[in-house]
């Protein structure tokens, strides 16, 4: 049993004793007090009666001034051991006879006596005196004077003390015994409860149970509830353990690598797949040790982003290369989600790394394929542009041969047509000029060249083109890819436009709206075609999503988005399908420098 300096049982015992002793003392004091007062009154009454007896026997000695018989009368007082002195005095207060219990001495002077009560009582320190007049035939013939010590009271007090002590002792023993018994029913269950609680909290053992006391009282309810609580904790504990186990099993069986960390971002747990892929141990990886498997070149980009996510408590998402046990890096889509407690504070972080190396490779392949396919489509659309002047040239050369007189003029016309063809091939070449690193390019010029390639198609549909290509705006990027972006957006607009629709194209210098301010160029393509429905808007950039069932591959806008992002640019799309006022606007922002060094 736990030892407390002021244990509940000690307190209970002390309380019992105090109450019993207090009550007993109070009762005794009241009782003895009353008894003492009564006793003193009796003492005086006894003395007064004795004085009267002496008085009535002293009448004749007084009348005859017979001190001898007066002394005899007084000697009867020898039986009263507390009377130290008694004297008989004449009516004038003269001493007649006296009695001394101890040594006879000088008789004391008579005090004045109240003529009405005929008696005077005075208490002094250790004695009291009583003087009484002796009447005879209505006249005072003398006085009796008695002096008594208070030994009687002291004797009584002494015996009281003995009685009180005995009773007190006996009752305290009884109280102690009673409290021991009462403890058994009150204190003991509570103390046992306290001990059990201590065992539970110290050993985290929720399987212990308290025996419920037989008496149904508050304590038994308390014990009952305590047991109930333990059962509940045990259930919750096992449910928690089970879900934790399930989580571990799940986390170890998923294809992703997973990990957990505290609110500060110190990682404390990784799933099996992490260790298998990286070939590391928890000791190496704990806290911020994961940096070991990161690409040192990428880390300066990862760390600030991770720290910012930790501070803001926001979801972290980034494609990060991680080194495998074989020393090769693979690309992982890394996501970390803050787990919040009931107060909304970040309690811990849960993260996953999904290997998207193959996906990225497949996407890159698809992008390359689509670039080639787009080039193919472009080739088909410009075939017309080339075939028409070729037809004219063929005819003109034939005519020049047939009509030598006009040969000069036919050949001049053929020359002009050949210039047309040369211009087309020159414009087309821009699409193939795909440099490995970004180069400086005149964006305004590129935009006009691409528009020129589609001018025939636009004229065929009688599309009104309103264009502001900007004033020789230059950017650093991949010229072929920028042209591809323009070509896809223009071709889409032409497809969407009805006969005699309007296409507005505008390029202007500007700054990026969201995030860090960055100088660049914004190119807007606005057509008043049928617009894009909100359902299509959501999926329009997804690969293989197309609304042109037979002619589209569904990769055009996906490619545009990919190429714009490659240039660290942004692509915005807004559209309205409102009847008669429909429109679609694509807005491309390209930063001045596609890649920051």
């Amino acid at each position, binding site marked *: 049993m736990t030892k407390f300096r002021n244990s509940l049982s000690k307190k209970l015992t002390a309380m019992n004793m105090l109450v019993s002793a207090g009550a007993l003392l109070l009762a005794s004091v009241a009782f003895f007090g009353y008894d003492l007062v009564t006793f003193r009154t009796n003492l005086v009454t006894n003395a007064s009666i004795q004085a009267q007896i002496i008085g009535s026997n002293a009448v004749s000695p007084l009348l005859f001034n017979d001190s001898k018989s007066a002394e005899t009368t007084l000697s009867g007082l020898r039986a009263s051991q507390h009377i130290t002195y008694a004297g008989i005095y004449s009516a004038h207060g003269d001493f007649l006879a006296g009695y001394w219990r101890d040594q006879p001495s000088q008789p004391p002077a008579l005090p004045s006596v109240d003529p009405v009560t005929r008696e005077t009582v005075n208490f002094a320190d250790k004695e009291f005196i009583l003087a009484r007049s002796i009447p005879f035939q209505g006249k005072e013939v003398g006085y009796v004077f008695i002096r008594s010590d208070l030994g009687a009271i002291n004797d009584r007090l002494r015996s009281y003390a003995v009685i009180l002590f005995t009773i007190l002792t006996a009752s305290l023993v009884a109280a102690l015994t009673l409290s021991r018994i009462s403890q058994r029913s009150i204190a003991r269950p509570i103390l046992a409860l306290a001990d059990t609680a201590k065992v539970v909290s110290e050993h985290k053992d929720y399987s212990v149970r308290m025996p419920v006391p037989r008496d149904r009282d508050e304590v038994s309810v308390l014990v009952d509830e305590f047991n109930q609580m333990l059962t509940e904790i045990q259930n919750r504990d096992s449910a928690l353990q089970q879900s934790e186990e399930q989580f571990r099993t799940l986390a170890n069986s998923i294809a992703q690598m997973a990990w957990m960390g505290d609110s500060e971002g110190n990682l404390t747990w990784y799933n099996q797949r992490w260790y298998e892929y990286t070939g590391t141990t928890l000791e190496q990886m704990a806290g911020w040790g994961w940096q070991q498997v990161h690409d040192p070149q990428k880390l300066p980009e990862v760390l600030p982003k991770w720290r910012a996510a930790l501070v803001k408590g926001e979801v972290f998402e980034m494609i990060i290369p991680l080194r495998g046990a074989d020393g090769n890096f693979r690309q992982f889509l890394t996501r970390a989600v803050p787990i919040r407690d009931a107060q909304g504070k970040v309690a811990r972080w849960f993260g996953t790394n999904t290997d998207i190396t193959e996906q990225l490779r497949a996407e890159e392949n698809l992008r390359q394929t689509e670039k080639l396919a787009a080039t193919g489509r472009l080739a088909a659309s410009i075939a*017309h542009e080339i075939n028409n002047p070729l037809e004219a040239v063929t005819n003109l050369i034939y005519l020049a041969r047939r009509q030598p007189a006009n040969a000069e003029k036919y050949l001049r016309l053929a020359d002009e047509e050949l210039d047309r063809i040369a211009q087309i091939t020159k414009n087309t070449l821009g699409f193939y000029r795909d440099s490995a690193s970004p180069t400086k390019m005149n964006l305004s010029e590129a935009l006009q060249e691409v528009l*020129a390639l589609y001018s025939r198609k636009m004229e065929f549909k009688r599309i009104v083109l309103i264009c502001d290509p900007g004033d020789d705006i230059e950017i650093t990027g991949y010229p072929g890819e920028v042209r591809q972006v323009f070509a896809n957006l223009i071709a889409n607009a032409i497809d969407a436009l009805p006969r005699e629709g309007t296409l507005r194209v505008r390029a202007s210098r500007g700054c990026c709206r969201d995030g860090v301010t960055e100088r660049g160029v914004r190119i807007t393509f606005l057509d008043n075609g049928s617009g894009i429905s909100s359902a299509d808007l959501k999926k329009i950039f997804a690969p293989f999503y197309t609304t042109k069932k037979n002619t589209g591959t569904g990769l055009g806008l996906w490619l545009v988005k990919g190429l714009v992002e490659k240039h660290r640019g942004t692509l915005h799309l807004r559209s309205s399908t409102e009847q008669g006022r429909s429109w679609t606007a694509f807005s491309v922002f390209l930063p001045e420098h596609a890649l920051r060094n």
Partner: protein
Amino acid sequence: MIQSWQIFDYSSFPIFGDPDQTSKHLDALDETGRSSGVDHGPKIMVIDDETLIAETVVEILKGEGFNAISVSSGDLAVELAKTMRPAVVLSDVMMPGLNGIETGIRIREIVPNCKIILFSGQAATGNLLEEARNSGHVFEILAKPIKPANLVSAIRASMPSH
């Protein structure tokens, strides 16, 4: 936001000159240097929005003794067909206004025996032809560029006398 829009001028592109210019070039040809065509016999109508092509083809056909005229649009050709009643129509496919297929269908309604030959520089005409075939209109098609000798023999094969 849009302040400095300008109406875009197609002719500012060097590859796409004003189509009317080409006819001017041909008009400037020496009158005496032209081969004299015939203005009798079955009529051949050559339709192309690129008038340089239409006029050079007509020039070639006239040189071979055909009675040919050039027309710069499908709409105009349909209008002319009512009075001219051509025996053979050679038409470009991708043209502003009525395209070659629509023009052919319309002309056939006016002149049921008229032979329609399409010539196109674009692969994308496949869809248009497919649509026409589905509605019962089958046209012969030639691909641009075509050698004048081949063009002439194709026309010759289509002439009603054969």
